[in-house]
């Protein structure tokens, strides 16, 4: 028996629906209008300009760099996090002394504010006094310009993201590993499947949905990257760590270029939706 009262349904659903509509549907409609307009911020006037904003974006090498950085960061960081998370999950999919204490230690970083993470790592990356360069020097190696070398900076930001969010991929995959029924594991053992072969042909196919889910959640999250570049590099040196979020932030809140920022936001929303649609489709496919 499902309840049918329309009045009660309306009362239950309307607060959440109205709030979400106000906070997302209204803003998205504004973005749609502004993306095709010239917006005079001071006079609060709007003028339809067709595709001008998109043409301007396509000629903006900062925007091209931001798309490239956001996409490559998203692909590389999420693959590394899921790979490391998978290895960690296999490590933790057994009983050992101290497991109860090791697990919370591994997941601490994801409880921290991104800004706190960035603060720690900014200190670690310091060229003269940083922990990492001190460690390199004590091993007799050359110090590294972690945040000020244009070829290095994006990877340094990525390392912080890997440190903070690999635990999430780890937890998702561990949940999958622990839901494999014991009799399947036993059957594989009696068949003589061991080590890498057992992992490759029995375990991995069974946890594929979780691996894909972790990949989906992490790639969408890394695609949004803002806090870490804001705190660690500000997008520099040059535009080597400029991301789409940072580009929209600068256009909208520093240069008050609302039309251009809206056009970029619309493109970013499209990419994010396409990304999640591809994965959702693959994920559903893997499930059935």
């Amino acid at each position: 028996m499902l309840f049918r009262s329309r009045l009660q349904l309306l009362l239950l659903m309307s607060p959440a629906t109205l709030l979400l509509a106000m906070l997302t549907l209204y803003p998205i409609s504004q973005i749609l209008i502004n993306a095709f307009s010239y917006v005079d911020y001071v006079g609060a006037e709007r003028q339809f300009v067709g595709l001008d904003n998109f043409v301007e974006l396509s000629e903006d090498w900062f925007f091209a760099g931001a798309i490239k950085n956001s996409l490559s960061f998203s692909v590389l960081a999420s693959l590394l996090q899921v790979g490391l998370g998978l290895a960690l999950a296999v490590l933790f999919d057994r009983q050992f002394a101290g497991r109860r204490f090791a697990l919370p230690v591994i997941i601490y970083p994801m409880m921290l504010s991104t800004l706190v993470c960035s603060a720690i790592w900014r200190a670690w990356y310091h060229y003269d006094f940083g922990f990492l360069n001190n460690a390199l020097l004590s091993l007799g190696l050359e110090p590294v310009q972690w945040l000020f070398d244009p070829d290095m900076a994006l990877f340094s930001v990525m390392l912080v993201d890997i440190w903070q969010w690999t635990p999430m991929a780890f937890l998702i995959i561990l949940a999958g590993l622990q839901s494999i029924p014991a009799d399947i594991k036993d059957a594989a053992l009696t068949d003589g499947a061991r080590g890498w072969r057992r992992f490759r042909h029995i375990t991995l196919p069974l946890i594929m949905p979780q691996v894909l889910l972790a990949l989906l959640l992490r790639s969408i999250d890394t695609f949004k990257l803002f806090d870490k570049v804001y705190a660690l590099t500000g997008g520099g040196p040059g535009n080597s760590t400029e991301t789409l979020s940072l580009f929209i932030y600068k256009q909208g809140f520093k240069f008050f270029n609302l039309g251009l920022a809206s056009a970029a936001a619309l493109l970013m929303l499209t990419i994010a939706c396409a990304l999640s649609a591809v994965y959702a489709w693959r994920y559903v496919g893997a499930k059935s």
Partner: protein
Amino acid sequence: MSAIKQTSVPVFSDSVAAPFSGVSRLSARTLGFYLALGAALTFFALPIVWMAGIAFTPSGEYVSDSLSLLPAHPTLAHFEALWRDGFPGRLANTLIVAVGATLLALSLGFLASYALVRFRFPRRLDHAFLLLVLVIKMMPPIVVAIPLFQLLKGLGLLDSKLGLILVYQVYTLPFCIWMLLSFVRDVPLSLEQAASLEGAGLLRRLWHIVLPLCGPGLAATFIFTLIMAWNEFLFALLYLSTPSHFTLPLYVSNFITENETFWGQLMGIGLLSSLPMLLMAGYVQRYLLRGFAMQMK
């Protein structure tokens, strides 16, 4: 290292040893396992241990000897400086905004997820609603940041706690609905049917049956949402302008970008602002696994 190995080998071999494997091979595998575990623990824990150490290290000492993790002469000077600098006020701001946003999301999300599980929707509107929730979860928040700025300005809620509580629903409400959906599904329908036959109305069923049975789920969702709101940075950066209104992540960012050399104070804030979350991490870890298992359904 050897002490760890000796005490742990029996436990490990009890559970995993296969009857055919030789003793030497087993101990090599055990050693490899503990080496990998040790490397992982070091990578994830070392930065946090370092942060705690620096927070108690007098200014000037961490420059000369930065590979040591514990301070030679521990001091509380950084915490005293923070206390005078207005840390308590920022802590109170964060607490009010995070708890407020969490309670709002939890109550609206609870009503909505109850309706989604128990009510028949006209024209499959429930599917449309769930799709909207999913899209919002995937949407980069910067996309809606500019219109939300104008919305808050129009409502006169810029630079206020209430405004921040409102816009945080972009993150917290979809998350709460998604989490609570599966907890409400676990409540047996038969209990509600029986109560309904005895004449219990919607509010009484919600209050006396569904709410108590969802208790653990509500608690877990509360904690996750609280962590999310506690750590939020982007909207706080965009919509707060008066320093005394700042939340902790924004306060931290000011220290990073402007006073890079005050590491002691910076790590002090880091430690203080994350301590409540770290304490909760141990408590919520069993819910974490369950939460992720449910997201897959």
